[in-house]
């Protein structure tokens, strides 16, 4: 799953533009993660601040 560190996130939408699943949406000042997120990590890579983290559940 995708963990959004809200204290780091700058709500810029950079991640939304690269999400191949269309799972992310920037709603005013928060980022919403849809259930169709596959945890591919593309968003975490491009985030200018490092606010996103893919967490693999055991």
């Amino acid at each position: 799953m995708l963990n959004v560190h809200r204290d780091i996130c700058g709500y810029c939408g950079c991640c939304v533009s690269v999400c191949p699943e269309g799972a992310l949406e920037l709603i005013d000042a928060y980022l919403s993660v849809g259930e169709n997120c596959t945890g591919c990590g593309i968003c975490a890579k491009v985030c200018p601040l490092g606010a996103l983290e893919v967490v693999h559940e055991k």
Partner: protein
Amino acid sequence: MKSKYDILIVGGGPAGAIAAKTAAQKGLSVCLVEKRPAIGAPVRCAEGIGKEALAEFIEPDPRWISADMTGAVVVAPDGFEMTLESSMAGGKVGYILDRKVFDRELVWQAADAGADVFVKTRASAPLMSDGRVRGAQLEYCGNVQKVNAEVVIAADGVESKFSKWAGIDTTVPVREIMSSVQYVMADIDINPSATIFYLGNEVAPEGYLWVFPKGKRAANVGIGISGRKSGKGHRAKDYLDRFVKQKFPHGKTIECIVGGVSVCRPLDCTVADGLMLAGDAARVVDPLTGGGIYNAMFTGKLAAETAAACIAKGDTSKKALMAYDKAWRASKMGKGIERNYLIKEYLIKQSDEKLNAIVHSVSKLDLKEFSTLTLVKELLKANPKLLVELGTLAASLR
């Protein structure tokens, strides 16, 4: 808010605002919705625009111009500076805008022209039937309302979702998103009338770092790096912090802005039945400079003009709206995007040594016309070998 408009515009940036104003002036009923509570904030922009480009849309006003640019400096990876100056009297070149005020002004003008404007209002789904867009579901403070429209113009920016919901793939390739951070810095020593661009794989891999003056001792200091070069420990912010620590150690950061800038080719098709895409949502940012304000206003205006003509004829099918897609691609802007895309693709593949050689070849350029095209032409004159390396692209530059 009415339940039906001629045109519904999603997004209150320059593309949406100019589209709204244009359509309203043509006598159409227009609804513009902006999901943020305030127009123009957060800025997410380095705020530079050419004077002539700006003048096509609006008379310059000191209320939203932060600084007047008369030149530019390109800094090679080895620190060598190439100065670009304009010889023209009156110094055309460019402005650094105050986008918070500028964007508000554009929406204000749209409202004065007759458009309805709603902020903190989000288009949360398209209304679709028979495979065509017929409006949108809008959410405002917990209320949900359906609004029908003959045409929806999606001007919802880099984080565009509307057209994706309507079936258009707007995904930006990882290597073609510029992962960006910018500080508005005060109390720093700068040249207040020149923009500075720092190049190099150590400074800003596959992108550049900029210092755009906002006043005598203030500037937008920012960076964009390719998404594929970004990762833990080497993100845009890491590069920018390193630069600022070395260059402006005593500067004060009064604003921190983050963003993504697409430098891919525009979408293959920017219309669908009942839907048009404009500005960053259509991925029409200049791929070389990352500049998007002019292209947003240009496509916004053209989209509204085409929509008005199609509505008058009673045909807002994809086929009819294609006139917009064809027109912007054939325009000077459209051709410039393609040309600059190819130049960008060439430049990002070059080593620092090669970039040094290119910048060193011309230490001082007096440009008759201040544009990236003129700059590239001059660089080609000084580096005849580039003609061969650029291949077919070079022919289009002559």
